[in-house]
């Protein structure tokens, strides 16, 4: 069946257009796809099937050629879609992996210190800042400049940022974040209306994203980030990425802070209990004899009193080990018993005892025991 001749000029035109589209496609897929350009090409490709079908029916292109192109276009659209989704999943993955790499960081202070640089790295921001909320103000705690660090403005920003303290006034976007606990994308007019003047003057930011850091059900700080050097337009995806970072970071921080609190409490309990225990050990048996001892001390202790005036040793002069040995000595333990109790050699005990007698000072072990009762009285009064 003879078909009417295909319009050669239109066909050549179509070939040209297709090869241009193909070139754009390959260029877009070669690097990390620019979503706006991808979407434009995707929509252009979407126009092709209907117009090609009409053109083929009108004998402007060969029907076989048109059919091939139509099917190819479908494949290209899928390729573009897959490339974008793949790139998006990878940016998502960078955030996750970045925060997973922080999971081994134990101190909350270190987390704050490391957050801005990590944020720049995983979300591709040029600058990032972490701040802390203090009562009715907020103040930057750390800033990182990933691109354009040599820029004079950024040098000044880094130098001055720690001195900034901004009151949480009602018009401020940070106040809004504190209240609504939602991330924001600020550009255009919102920049002048809701951004702190001092910060804007320092940063010269034209657009930025910010998110609250929620710790223990309270907004404890903020993350701010922008693309100052590259001037890359910030999108809702940047805002959401920052939000995801901030939310996981908040939990990381809270866990670290909780671990620190547990340790501090443990140490406090330990310190309190051992001082209570030594306090009890000093107090208990001393009570009765001290009353009686003082009755005599005035009579016999004159010599000792004279030495005392020359500098009565403070309990602190004895090391904790010496104090421990003195305590054992006061129970009447012999050197060998002390050695056994402390798992050291007898000669070590001897040299400790010698130093104790020298420090107290005491002429002999008996006097040392007496001094012990005096000293432990001093010690418990001091604490």
């Amino acid at each position, binding site marked *: 069946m003879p078909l009417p001749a295909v319009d050669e000029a239109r066909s050549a035109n179509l070939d040209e257009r297709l090869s241009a589209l193909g070139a754009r496609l390959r260029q877009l897929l070669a690097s990390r796809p620019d979503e706006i350009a991808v979407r434009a090409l995707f929509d252009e490709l979407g126009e092709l099937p209907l117009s090609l079908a009409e053109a083929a*029916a009108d004998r402007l292109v060969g029907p076989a050629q048109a059919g091939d192109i139509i099917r190819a276009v479908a494949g290209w659209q899928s390729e573009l879609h897959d490339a974008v989704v793949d790139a998006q999943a990878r940016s998502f993955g960078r955030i996750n992996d970045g925060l997973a790499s922080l999971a081994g960081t134990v101190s909350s202070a270190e987390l704050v210190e490391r957050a801005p640089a990590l944020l720049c790295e995983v979300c591709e921001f040029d600058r990032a800042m972490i701040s802390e909320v203090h009562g009715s103000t907020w103040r930057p705690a750390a800033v990182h400049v990933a691109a354009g660090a040599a820029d004079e403005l950024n040098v000044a920003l880094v130098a001055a940022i720690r001195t900034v303290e901004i009151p949480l006034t009602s018009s401020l976007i940070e106040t809004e974040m504190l209240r609504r606990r939602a991330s924001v994308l600020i550009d255009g007019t919102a920049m002048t209306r809701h951004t702190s003047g001092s910060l804007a003057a320092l940063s010269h930011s034209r657009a930025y994203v910010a998110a609250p850091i929620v710790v223990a059900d309270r907004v404890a700080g903020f993350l701010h980030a922008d693309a100052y050097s590259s001037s890359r337009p910030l999108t809702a995806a940047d805002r959401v990425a920052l939000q995801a970072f901030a939310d996981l970071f908040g939990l990381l921080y809270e866990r670290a802070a*909780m671990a620190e*609190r547990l340790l501090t409490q443990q140490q406090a309990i330990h310190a309190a209990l051992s001082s209570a225990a030594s306090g009890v050990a000093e107090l208990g048996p001393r009570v009765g004899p001290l009353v009686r001892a003082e009755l005599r001390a005035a009579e*016999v202790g004159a010599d000792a009193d004279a030495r005392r005036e020359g500098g009565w040793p403070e309990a602190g002069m004895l090391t904790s080990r010496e104090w421990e040995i003195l305590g054992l000595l006061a129970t009447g333990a012999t050197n060998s018993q002390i050695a056994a109790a402390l798992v050291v050699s007898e000669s070590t005990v001897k040299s400790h005892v010698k130093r104790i007698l020298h420090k107290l000072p005491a002429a002999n072990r008996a006097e040392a*025991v*007496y001094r012990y009762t005096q000293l432990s009285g001093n010690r418990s009064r001091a604490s």
Partner: protein
Amino acid sequence: MKSAARGGPIVAVAPVPAAWRHHEDALAERVTAMHSTASQALAGERNAAVLSRIAVGDLTGAVAALTAWCADHLIAVRAGDGEAAPAGGAEAAPAGDGEAAEELRVILRELRTLGSEVADHAFGLYASRLADASAAVRRLGAMATSAQLVDQACAELVYRCGFGRAVLSRVDSETWRPWMAHFTGAAVDASWFAEWVDRPIPLDDLVLEAQVFTEHRPAAVPDTCDPRVYRPIIVDAGRSTSYVVAPVIVAGEVAGFFHADHAPGQRRSGLVDREVLWTFSQGFSLAYERLVLAERVQAQRSRLHAALGSAEALIARRAPALDLALIPDQDERLRIYDEQHICAHGGVPGGSGYENLTDREREVLELLAVGATNAQIADQLVVSESTVKSHVRHILRKLGAVNRAQAISRYLGIAPMGGLPDSRA
């Protein structure tokens, strides 16, 4: 309809699927409807490739394939018409090229609009799912106890992150054991899961989960035909066609897994699903560790209180009669003090040779106890030093002390008899 696969506290989460999932289901319905319309225009012909793409959630591909299919038919229809009717103008649609061609043209125009909506959804899906994962992390962070966290995690994963099913397993170095689950969707049979709860599944090298375990990284299985899939639970019992898995890392070790898929549908689980799950499981791990630490802070306090309480009770029991406020004058107080003291220490002076001491010896002992040297004692008592020495010798013998310090110590009651272990013991 929802069904929890495990007994115990069922979660009070509003059973509203994630917004993106709702929107995607609506779009899928529209693409399916377009396929039906095209199919009617083409005398009941069906396109299996389009339908299977809809099923796995590839709406972009489905629209593209449906468009290509309709365009192909339009060419064919019009080629057929071309013989009967002379070709019209190149620009305007030729009149009278048949009802079928016109229908296809309408469908293709509608597909262009639908394709654009599908692209909006597909290209923006990342941001909304990232936001969902983030919101889920916040909710995990707000859980009050680790028990609540564990109980509700799977439901959160299903409702907040748009999965169809979620399973939490516990992991030790050799096995993983399914623990909690939440399934959604109408007519889902969750009974199979009960049989798998706490059943150990070996983490041998051939299983994908072993890789998740060693690498501390999540994984996506686009197709469960993958030979690394542990088929007995995932395919044979769970009938999953595609899933994602992420590790729960507690104190640097993999302590569990989250598995999730889009059942009962055939929607494929991809890289974005993997990252959503990874965000979620990281949030879960951190929230879990934080809660355990917080519970420990509490436990430390209550143990401290208990310990102090029992110490106080102990003290109260030991010295019920000692109440200084009731004791009249100072001398009396002293006396009671001493007696109390002596009793408390098993009567040191009274019961262990003290009563055998002579008055003079007692005097010497009292001086000894305040740290006086032999010379000082001699001075005080106006005797010779050698006399003091012999007094001291007698005192030591009578008290059974090996040295002066021990004698004083026993007298002062610092140490009860035999308080320290003998060095030879």
